[in-house]
Every structure is written in structure tokens, then in C-alpha cells.
């Protein structure tokens, strides 16, 4: 049954196409740039006709950057690895800490629970620099500066509130009676949490985890201040492409493509579960 007129469908199609082009064009352009040399990128006027080359990727992966001023060592692959370690580590930790906490905040009203939850959220409002300065000093004293552990800890400022608040909403949407029906059948609250509440909130947890991963992946300022060269993620590492002899657009583009890839892959993979969760529906009692 389609009672929309042909014109209306055309207009909708055009509008959708515009939106897609608007959002996808920069990515497409970056991909094209990553396959060109600096000379072809910088020629004027720009053109989409060129002979593709993989030399940017090769340079990144081998870690040697050839510039007019000579060869330069870059640590892009280890930066990428650092990004993976930091993002995965902090999301995992945030899930382990945040999901049970979200459940507690959703199910139990205790003294000050609202205040604690709000305080955690307020970490998101504070400018990062506000906490960074004291943290740097403390971390140096504690020996946490420039360790994965210390960085993952600080990344909780980003991930934990996100996961806590999103997942809490999902838990609140589950009728408590569904859990009680299971508990009264002789199951402990822990078994109920694992077998009833967690699966029902699964899509929400996946969404929150994905979002937290993206935020952690894109973080710049914490890593810039607290990490030295060998712990830096790609966001900070990319600064190395701004060299004395100019900006290496080709390599930057290739680096961007490589650093988008994991998030994109994760999003595509998680999407299945997100959609599955939505179609399961009728979680509310």
C-alpha cells in the first residue's frame, strides 16, 4: 500500500540522497586522498582522475615516512595498537563497573543514589583540563603517569557516565515483575540479574558500549597530556604527520582511514545486535 504520489517519493529520494552525500562525501574524499601522493592531492584544480597508489599505507605500516627532507620514523602502527588497547580496556572496565551500578541505580532507591548518579554524569560537563592538571601531578606521584592502567583509569571519566546513564534507562524499562517472577521461582538476585535483566538490557548495553568505544577512541586531550610517545593513541600520534617539511596529506588520509576502520567495523557488527534487540520488542510488562 503506497498512497504517496510519485512527486513526493522523488522529493524524498532526493532529500535522502543529499543527506547521504553530505555525510559520506568527506569519508569518500579521505579514501581517495589516501590513495594519492602529496603532489596529486595538492594540484590545482583538484581532480578525481589519478593513478591510485598504496605507498601511503605502505609507509604507515612499515613505519618509515619518506619526505623531501629525508626519512622519518613514525609509530603509527603502535599508535593504532595503543588506541585499541586503551579503548577496549576502558570500555571493558566501564562495562564491568557500570552495568551492575546502572542496575543498582535503576532498581534500588537508596540514600543519595540520585546524587551519586548525577555526580558521575557531571564528569561529562567538566572541561577535561580542569581535572587534567591535578591528575598529572597525582599520577606522577603515584607512578601512574604514562601507564596503560593509569590512562584506562582516566578514560573512565568518559566511558563510565555514558554507560551508567544509558544502561540505567534500559534497566528501568524492564518491568521489575519479570525479574520478580523469576526470583520467586527460587532464584537468587544474582542469577536473576544474569539470566533475566542482562539479556533484556543487552541491546542497550551494546549501544552504550559502542558509544563509549567511539568516545574513548576519539579522545585526544587525556592521552596528549598523560601519555608519552610509546603509549599514545592515533589521535595524538597523527600530530607527527605535521612535519617540518610540510603536512603529509596522503599519509594523514591513510591514517584516518585506518583509524576509522576499527570503529566502523565494530559499529557494523554491533548493528546486528542493536536491530535484533529492537525487533525483540515488548520488553515492557
Amino acid at each position, binding site marked *: 500500500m503506497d498512497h504517496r504520489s510519485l512527486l513526493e517519493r522523488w522529493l524524498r529520494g532526493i532529500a535522502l540522497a543529499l543527506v547521504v552525500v553530505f555525510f559520506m562525501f568527506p569519508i569518500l574524499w579521505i579514501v581517495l586522498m589516501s590513495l594519492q601522493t602529496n603532489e596529486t592531492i595538492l594540484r590545482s584544480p583538484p581532480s578525481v582522475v589519478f593513478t591510485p597508489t598504496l605507498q601511503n599505507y605502505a609507509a604507515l605500516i612499515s613505519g618509515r615516512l619518506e619526505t623531501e627532507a629525508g626519512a622519518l620514523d613514525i609509530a603509527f602502527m603502535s599508535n593504532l595498537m595503543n588506541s585499541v588497547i586503551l579503548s577496549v580496556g576502558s570500555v571493558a572496565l566501564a562495562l564491568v563497573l557500570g552495568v551492575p551500578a546502572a542496575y543498582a541505580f535503576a532498581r534500588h532507591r537508596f540514600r543519595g543514589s540520585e546524587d551519586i548518579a548525577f555526580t558521575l554524569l557531571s564528569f561529562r560537563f567538566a572541561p577535561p583540563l580542569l581535572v587534567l592538571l591535578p591528575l598529572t601531578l597525582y599520577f606522577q606521584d603515584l607512578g601512574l603517569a604514562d601507564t596503560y592502567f593509569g590512562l584506562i583509569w582516566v578514560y573512565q571519566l568518559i566511558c563510565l557516565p555514558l554507560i551508567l546513564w544509558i544502561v540505567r534507562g534500559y534497566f528501568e524499562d524492564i*518491568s*521489575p*515483575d*519479570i525479574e*520478580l*517472577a*523469576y*526470583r*520467586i*521461582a*527460587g*532464584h*537468587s*538476585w544474582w542469577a536473576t540479574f544474569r539470566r*533475566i535483566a542482562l*539479556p*533484556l538490557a543487552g541491546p542497550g548495553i551494546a549501544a552504550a558500549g559502542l558509544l563509549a568505544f567511539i568516545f574513548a577512541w576519539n579522545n585526544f586531550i587525556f592521552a596528549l597530556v598523560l601519555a608519552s610517545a610509546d603509549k599514545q593513541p592515533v589521535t595524538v600520534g597523527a600530530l607527527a604527520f605535521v612535519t617540518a617539511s610540510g603536512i603529509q596529506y596522503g599519509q594523514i588520509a591513510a591514517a584516518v582511514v585506518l583509524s576509522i576502520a576499527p570503529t566502523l567495523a565494530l559499529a557494523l557488527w554491533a548493528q546486528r545486535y542493536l536491530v535484533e534487540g529492537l525487533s*525483540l*520488542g*515488548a*520488553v515492557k*510488562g
Partner: protein
Amino acid sequence: MSAPLLVLDRVNKIYDPDGPNPVHAVRDLDLAVNPGEIVALLGSSGCGKTSTLRMIAGFEAVSAGSITLAGRAIHDLAPARRNVAMAFEGYALYPPLTVRENIAFALKSRRRDRDGIARRVAEIARLLEIEDILDRYPSQISGGQQQRASLARALIRPADLHLLDEPMGQLEPQLRAHLRGRLKHFIREGGLTVILVTHDQTEANALADRIAVMEGGVLQQFDSPARLRERPANLFTGAFIGEPPMNLLEAEVEARDGRIIFRLKGGAPLDYPAGELSPALLEWLRRGGRVTLGVRPHRVRIGPGGLPAQVLANQWLGDQSHVAASFAGGVIVSVEHDRVPHGPGAEIGLTIALADLHIFDPASGRAIGHGGRLVEET
């Protein structure tokens, strides 16, 4: 008589006690349920029925008082350790599981053998007529079907006590009446002890051995259906139980010349020989003053003689007549089993036998006498 299975002793529930609007949902509730008994909780919406069940099940903390089940004080135990089964007002089926799995998960936790579980599920599904939807998901079935699935899940579990919160509220009257018989048979067969909440008095009368009437969080009366009808403890139960509701008449008591006269508004006298009243009731009434009289519509007789009344409406319901008449400054309803010829405006005579008269104290609402005897004598 054996010791009661469940004892509620001065149980109170206050929601949000420290908040700005505390709700005292259940007040000083005493209730004792015998093993194998079916008890119905009856009362208007919001009177605290669900709160009571949830305290027994352990989903709400008891604010004050104690609950004992099978000799154990359970009010501080986790729900899992109370050995109680419950069917929820909102069904609470688990969405990712089929109806069959939902029903079975109450048993699975007990590690019963697969064949045994399958047999039990099939049996209960046949009983409640949900065999054809066993393999569907809760989101794919109707409200009434969800309700029966949730009832099945509660009934299938062996437990000391089964709590059923409005177990058949979503079903059409025919199916409800039909399932009611089977349900009762199943409960008796299995020797289950059941507390069920219902809004349907017919259902309460048909299923329950005793009915607990609640209002405003207070237990009004806990008695057999027959006694609730014949011996209401106060004005509330009197008016709440029975359809159509009891007729209530304000009266002034007068005792003279060996007769007791209840002078109704407008002067009409209900006049009985004092000798037909028990001496104790007579003594109480001799003090004079105001009383509220109650009489069930089925017991108001239309016929020659009697007090004058004027018909306002006369409805034949297919098996009985409901006649509303203006009487003693108000309206009185009479139910007759035959057709009544009088149309609106007709003058009729009404008789009310002393045996059918309930006398209440208008100030406190407490019942004083039934059928010519003091409450304490009945």
C-alpha cells in the same frame, strides 16, 4: 482444626514513609489461612490487595508486623526462599522465551526430568486452554492469553502457597465461568492453598472458601461467602457485597406497647412485635436513637399490604425483575424472580421481614443486629 498455614499478624505497609506523601496502603492486617483453603481478597481498586500479596511474596518489605508461612517467619526472607508462587497482575512473562518455556522455567530450576516437565506443562495448558499458543512468544499473544500463561506458570510450581492477582480479569465471562470450575478442581486435587485477588464477586463466591473484604487498607471482614451475605460486619461490607447493592434506610427507633418501630424518613413505620426480637437486641434498641437499616433487594417483597411506594423503573433482566421505587424519601430496589406487572408511577406495597433486616450503628458503621438478633448472638 489444624493450625493455620499462613498467618499475617498486624501487617502494615507504608510506601515512601519518609517522603512528602507517605501512603499507608495496608493497616494492621490480621489474616489466618488454613492449609488447602482458597481465600479471595475482595475490595475496591487501590484498597491494598496487591500490596498484601506482594508483601507475602517478598517483593515489598513489611513496614510493621509479621508473616508466618508453614511455621516459618518469612517476612525477612528473600522471595526465593519463601516457597511461594505468584501470578502477577501485569502477567510479567519473560519476552525472549516462548509461552511453553515461560511456564516451564518455574520447574526447570528444580531440575526435574524433561518428560515430567513436558507432561505437566501440557496438562496445565489443556486445563487453561492455551495449548495452541505454547510455542508463541508473549508479544505475539493477546492479553487474555498472556494472563492464562502467567496463571499456568504460577499454578505449575509446587509451593506452600499460591498467590493469584486477578488471575482471570482479562477473560470474557463465559470462558471465566468455564475455567473457574476447572481451576477449583485443579486446586482441590493438588491440595493447593490459594489467595486470589478478584473484582468479581461471583468468582469470589464460586471459588473461595472464605473472602477477605478490604477497604482503605483495612480488613473489613473475613468470612465465608454465605456469612458475608447474611451477617455483614459493617455498613461497608453490607453495601459492597451483593448485586444489586443492599438498600440502606435511615430510621429512628421507637419502642412502645410491646412493639419496636423503626420510623423511616417521611414517617413510614417499619413495625415489628417486640417478642420476635432477641432480648439483648431489644435492650439495645430500647435506648432509642438513630440506626441505619439494611435490606437486600432480593428480600424486599412486593405485594398487597405493606408500606406504600411508587415504582420509578421496572426492568426484566430475563430471569429476574429489578424494580426501583421511591420509598421513605429515597429509592429502594427490589428483585423479584417473576415478572412484575407494575409500570412506572404505579403504587405498590413493600414488606420487609424482620429476619431480613440488618441494623447498623450510623456513626461507626458497625453492625448491631441481623434478623432480630444482636451480632454477638449470631
